[in-house]
């Protein structure tokens, strides 16, 4: 029998704590595959966020650190500056990166830190019970926008990629989605490129945003959550590569 697909070694063989239909599992796999394909496991350090993915180290078999909410890009800076030979990546949700950690991600990009950031945008705070995130779309019902997000009192969805792409220190910014096989394959390419740039010593920050389903707090089924990414989220968060300037050191 021919093996057409198998679990990549850096992805641990264990039960998941994520909800049915959650996108974190897919995102974890893409990172694990990338690490194994590039052969960088023994020099990779990962940073887990505060949020549902705080336990990412239970699934990714690399050295990992848990950090305060939003501070991952600062921690990554401390790690990479003192260990330029290591591959340092942060894995951050939209509450972590786009709310409490906005200063840290903007300044890490602004300083052209040579780190890789995987940004999971599921338009909601998952771990704390489905509250509004900065990326919650207008009209979306959450625990703290029970009438639907209203721009006049709750502001507009924050587009992180567009914000970062204007900074010279951000050398690669791409937004992908985990909503179907074709999208996931594109996401894999983007994640891999973001790691390859760092491994090659490219002089700046690489960020991949992944639009990711949260059926639990979108109050829908896993299948419908995938559809909602396609029909609603991509309207506010258009997919594609916003920037790809390969700077060599």
């Amino acid at each position: 029998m021919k093996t057409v697909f198998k679990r990549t070694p850096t992805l641990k063989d264990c039960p998941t704590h994520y909800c049915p239909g959650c996108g974190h599992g897919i995102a974890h796999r893409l990172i694990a595959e990338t690490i194994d394909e590039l052969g960088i496991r023994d020099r990779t350090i990962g940073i887990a966020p505060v949020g549902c993915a705080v336990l990412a180290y239970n699934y990714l078999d690399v050295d990992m650190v848990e950090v305060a909410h939003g501070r991952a890009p600062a921690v990554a800076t401390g790690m990479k500056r003192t260990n330029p030979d290591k591959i340092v990546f942060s894995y951050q949700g939209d509450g972590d990166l786009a709310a409490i950690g906005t200063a840290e991600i903007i300044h890490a990009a602004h300083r052209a830190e040579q780190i890789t950031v995987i940004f999971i945008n599921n338009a909601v705070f998952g771990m704390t019970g489905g509250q509004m995130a900065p990326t919650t779309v207008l009209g979306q019902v959450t625990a703290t926008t029970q009438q639907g997000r209203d721009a006049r009192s709750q502001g507009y969805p924050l587009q992180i990629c567009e914000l970062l792409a204007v900074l010279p220190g951000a050398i690669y910014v791409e937004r992908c989605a985990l909503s179907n096989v074709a999208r996931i394959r594109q996401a894999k390419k983007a994640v891999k490129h973001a790691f390859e740039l760092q491994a090659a010593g490219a002089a700046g920050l690489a960020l991949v945003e992944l639009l990711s389903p949260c059926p639990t707090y979108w109050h829908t089924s896993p299948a419908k959550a995938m559809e909602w990414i396609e029909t609603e989220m991509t309207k506010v968060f258009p997919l594609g590569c916003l920037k790809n300037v390969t700077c060599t050191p």
Partner: protein
Amino acid sequence: MNERILMCGNEALAEAAIIAGCDAYFGYPITPQNEITAYMSKRMPEEGRVFVQSESELAAINMVYGAAATGKRAMTSSSSPGISLMQEGISYLAGAELPAVVVNVMRGGPGLGNIAPSQGDYFQATRGGGHGDYRTIVLGPWSVQELVDCMPLAFDLADQYRMTVLVLADGILGQMMEPVAIPKNSKLKPAPSAVEGTKNSKLPKKDWALTGAKNRGQNIVRSLWLQEGVLEQLNYKLQAKYRQVQKNEIICEQYAVEDAEIVVVAYGIAARIVRGAVAKARQEGIRAGWIRPVTLWPFPAEQISQAADQFRMFLVVEMSCGQMVEDVKLAVTGKAPVLFYGRPGGGVPTVEEILDKIRQLTMPAKRQYK
């Protein structure tokens, strides 16, 4: 003997940190400690080490957290309002048991306060301004030379106990110039890689550090423990470690307490002023002495308690409205009167002010009312 040179406290402590093997400095400008950041920005790259001016104190302490998690010797410095911002990070450092050195060149508070010297952050330093049951080791030097000497000690204690060591200076110590001997080749200087352990050092090997899982299993640095009872056990483990620090690391100096009728307790620059006042009191025939805690946590409660068995009265002098005085009272346990004299908000007591206080307190009643 090393050559003595004239240096301000901020620059001297920065150079001492470099000699102590500091791999990385992260900081954000704030007065009155800006000389540290400026000095490090020049000297660290010269030594092939890391300097980053962060976007905030929040980022600075988290950069320290990142470098420390990989086994490097990392430090930051700030002044009171900036140290407040770092409390979250210091709590995480404690939870994750990471070694770090933080220098606080204290200024007047609360709020934005002023930029004058103060000792208003004693509570924050010794009680912990961050959340959770944790301790930081706190060193309170009183001279530029002692500031220099306590930097290698701070890095060693941090590595030995996997704790944050806070060096509690103030605006005077930071700005004041004094002759100092900076050891050119400190015996305490670690090998370039603290991760593999050091041949000449008894410091523990950093086998927990994140260096990439090469030829070993995954290392995880964390402070989240959700399973029932696990965090409780971790806290007991931390407390056992803190008891070891209390047992082994107390530093305290005292002068002329044997026959003293009044013992003045002070730390840092205030103790320096007290020394002058006590010397003058002795010249006047007043039997005064002083006790100076150098480690503010662990606090030399035993030394003060012993003194309380023999002496009539304690006077605590601080550049605050009275913070360390609470620790002195806890140590004295009611065995002797504990009085207080302090100047908050950037006020610095003079030798004469303290001497007057000593005179008042020791004056026989009939002379007092003459």
